[in-house]
């Protein structure tokens, strides 16, 4: 069994090596036709840029995405500099340089990579999936009888911030930086998924398709790991299935299929303000122009945030979204599960958490207010701050860096729910409802707690669960996403996620159950 596991790991690493090495291979040749299409689509009028690319790039062979990208970007930047000096604003190219470069590269791959998409798919995704499954499946036997098996988590370099963990962190951070900021470098990854993308939406794969496909793949494989690890716990099994379903169907397949039918790309479960660009001009216009379906999406999005989200949080706690539906939560609960113990449980971290997450909530609300103000009045700025800049900085700082690079890239260093705990504005909103108006709590079972601390250690949200349980108090915290792992790891059956009457939900106690009844009454009445 261990041999199978080891060979699985080797196969996985080979797949990962192929996947990574794809960044450095390939041949590119921008044809006249591609060039003209991109110039037209991007509405580029800079003659400096057009002439430069025409002479230096078009119909020339390049042996890596980096060298081609470098040429394009240096020309673009020189062009912008020139026209800025001349104050010819109309000729400046405002698109992000790497995105213009991506547009050109996407259609210009030639040679071996393009001709062997199937083989490369097998060598990267195929080997990766196969290896990971071979690594995971033997756990059915190796983990022994069903039950909580956290043996060796703190002795392993991968899960205790050792070198494997740090290396994994670096890789993930690098991946997110490429994904968000250098899409032209990863154009080879898009090629190998073109066939799948075309079969779904009819379009070739974009970098976002790569991300979505990879996301679903990783979640599926790591969900298998969850099923094995928590096979004694039906809550975990059902919850994992739910979160996987919503990712694959709602976040991935339905939007792609909508595109095929010429409808707007729309993820029905992605609620504002997590979906921070819902009210952006391009998005609103896109929906409104799409007729009835678009209008339905618009109304649905607003109802989702204003009615469905709070009502569901009232009845079930924010877990219904965070650990049953949400994509970010879904990745955290599958890929991130091995890292849940790394969250910071200190009181200081809790303070930072409250400032940060509510700060982001305020930021997104102000940004959205400015956006709508601009949308309806046509004024481009509000109290001197340009709306566009607010949107840009939110998108860059929060949408990309916080949610992606830090949120996922740092899984192996600071735990798997960093974004959900410190950043997500939707979580902040639901947290307020959960804390003040909800039926959800984690019930503490009388006086049975032995203060062992398994619950706190494995709380991905950094809640010191034990601090409540050992006092016999229920846990009612804004940040709890109801993953149920504290319940699972408790060796004494002390905790249970429950939706019950609001009365008595918060129950501070002095003397715990089990002691003298009179003493309990005396002390608890004070």
């Amino acid at each position, binding site marked *: 069994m261990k041999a199978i596991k080891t060979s699985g790991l080797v196969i996985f690493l080979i797949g990962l090596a192929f996947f990574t090495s794809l960044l450095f291979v390939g041949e590119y040749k921008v044809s006249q036709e591609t060039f003209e299409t991109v110039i037209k689509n991007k509405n580029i009028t800079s003659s400096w840029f057009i002439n430069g690319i025409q002479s230096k790039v078009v119909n020339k062979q390049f042996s890596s995405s980096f060298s081609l990208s470098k040429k394009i970007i240096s020309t673009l930047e020189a062009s912008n500099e020139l026209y800025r000096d001349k104050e010819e604003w109309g000729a400046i190219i405002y698109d992000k340089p790497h995105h213009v470069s991506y547009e050109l590269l996407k259609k210009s791959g030639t040679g071996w990579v393009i001709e062997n998409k199937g083989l490369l798919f097998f060598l990267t995704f195929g080997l990766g999936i196969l290896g990971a499954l071979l690594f995971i499946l033997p756990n059915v036997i190796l983990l022994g009888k069903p039950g909580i098996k956290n043996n060796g988590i*703190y002795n392993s370099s991968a899960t205790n911030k050792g070198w494997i963990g740090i290396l994994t962190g670096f890789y993930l951070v690098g991946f997110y930086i490429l994904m968000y900021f250098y899409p032209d470098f990863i154009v080879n990854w898009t090629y190998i998924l073109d066939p799948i993308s075309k079969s779904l939406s009819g379009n070739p794969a974009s970098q976002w398709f790569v991300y979505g496909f990879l996301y679903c793949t990783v979640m599926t494989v790591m969900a298998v790991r969850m099923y094995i690890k928590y096979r004694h716990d039906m809550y975990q099994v059902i919850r994992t299935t739910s979160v996987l379903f919503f990712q694959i169907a709602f976040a991935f397949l339905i939007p792609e299929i909508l595109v095929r039918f010429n409808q707007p790309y729309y993820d029905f479960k992605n609620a504002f303000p997590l979906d921070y660009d819902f009210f952006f001009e391009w998005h609103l216009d896109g929906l409104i122009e799409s007729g009835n379906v678009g209008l339905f999406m618009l109304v649905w999005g607003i109802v989702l945030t204003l009615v469905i989200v709070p009502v569901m949080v009232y009845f079930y706690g924010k877990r219904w979204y965070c650990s049953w539906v949400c994509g970010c939560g879904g990745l955290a609960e599958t890929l991130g599960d091995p890292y849940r113990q790394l969250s910071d449980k200190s009181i200081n971290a809790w303070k930072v958490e409250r400032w940060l997450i509510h700060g982001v909530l305020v930021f997104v609300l102000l940004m959205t207010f400015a956006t709508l103000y601009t949308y309806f009045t046509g004024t481009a700025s509000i109290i001197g701050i340009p709306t566009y800049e607010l949107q840009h900085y939110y998108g860059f700082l929060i949408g990309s860096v916080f949610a992606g690079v830090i949120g996922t890239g740092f899984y192996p260093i600071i735990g798997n729910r960093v974004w959900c705990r410190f950043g997500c504005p939707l979580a902040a909103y639901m947290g307020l409802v959960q804390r003040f108006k909800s039926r959800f709590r984690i019930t503490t079972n009388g006086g049975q707690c032995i203060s062992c601390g398994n619950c706190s250690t494995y709380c991905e949200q950094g809640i010191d669960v034990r601090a409540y349980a050992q006092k016999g108090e229920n846990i009612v915290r804004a940040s709890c996403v109801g993953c149920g792992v504290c319940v699972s790891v408790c060796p004494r059956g002390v905790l249970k996620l429950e939706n019950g009457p609001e009365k008595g939900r918060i129950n501070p106690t*002095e003397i715990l159950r089990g002691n003298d009844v009179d003493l309990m009454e005396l002390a608890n009445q004070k």
Partner: protein
Amino acid sequence: MEHIAIIGNGISGVTAARHIRKNSDKRITLISSESKYFFARTALMYVYMGHMKFEHTAPYEKGFWKKNNIELKKGFVNTVHPDKKQLDFTNGTILKYDKLIIASGSKPSKYGWKGQNLNRVFGMYHKQDLDKLEKFAPNKEVCQRAVIVGGGLIGIELAEMLRSREIPVTFLVRENSFWNGVLPKEESEMINKHIEEHHIDLRLGVNLREIKAAENGQLKSVVIDETGEEILCDVIGVAAGVTPNVNFLRGSGIEVNRGIMVNRFLETNIEGIYAIGDCAEQREAIGQRRNIEAVWYTGRMMGETVAQSICGNKTKYKPGNWFNSAKFLDIEYQTYGWVWAEEKENETHFYWEHKDGKKCIRINFDTETHQFIGINIFGIRMRHEFFDNALNEKKTVESVLTYLADANFDPEFYKKHEAEIVEKFNKENGTNIILKKKSWTRIFNKA
């Protein structure tokens, strides 16, 4: 300001300190030779198993003690001088007190076996034991076999710990079935089976004759008394129960029997000196409880009680209904009220076991009045509050079974067994109990 010194910073001492602080501004000093900061002894096993780091076993952050103005002193009390109200430490320092709470806990019992003081023979109780285990049994290469002596709760935890690193374990149990002094036959046998499923070499009904050393003075083997069999091993875990840790008090004038003798107010024979937790021995029995109860929960309850007395609200120690819990490898165990290994006179047991052999319950009730006396639960979680109320209100077994769905505390989506349980009871007793559906109103209105 009155100075309260507390010897021992386990759950009893710490609970006392916290509650004294809640109710007064007295000066409090918490003394320990084991660890400056309070940690949960119950979690040491998880550190060895790699579930946690030692720092995770501390229930309070380091700043907690300062914030609550509780002084921490690391040191070993050599002698107590009640006349001078003074503690002498082994390092020569002294500490004056006005009132003293002794919560010195217990230590693993040893029964005078030959070779019991070899350095690879130790219990699993102190932080230092954990360090020893990490040193002598870091993996299956260094420790090719471990022998555990004594079949109680610590013994099975120690076996689980060693198995988590795949170290072969031989488990010597004196009784002819695991923990059968406490557990009835069926439950005990269920655990026997489960122990063997975990590839632990369980030897029932055997005693330890001697511990042998090799020529270099290192531990070599154990010899089993009944068969004379010699088992080579690298580590011996002593888990044959615990004894109050009170030797440092002998000769101090504080009355000590097996433990420190206390009355119902947890007072020793000397005014202003109290004893709580594992080290305390009750002069008069409390209900059917043992006079020395080395249990986490009772330690905590004594701490809660003594704090009241110290703060001017003189309070008798009156523990409520007995409850306890444990985990045997993968099988969780809870108990509420009394269920003895054998039915006492006038008691009837009802037993149900799930077909997978991993879950069971046993209800003990009065043969004539049918009053509910207690329940053992394995592999299912149930509400403390439900059974506490049933015991306080002297409910009948029929009433308990009727509302059994309210008692269930398993996570959502778990398979429920109440219907099956009630059906079996009805069949065996010719009753016609109808299981009521779970009601949130009933569950939460009792709060």
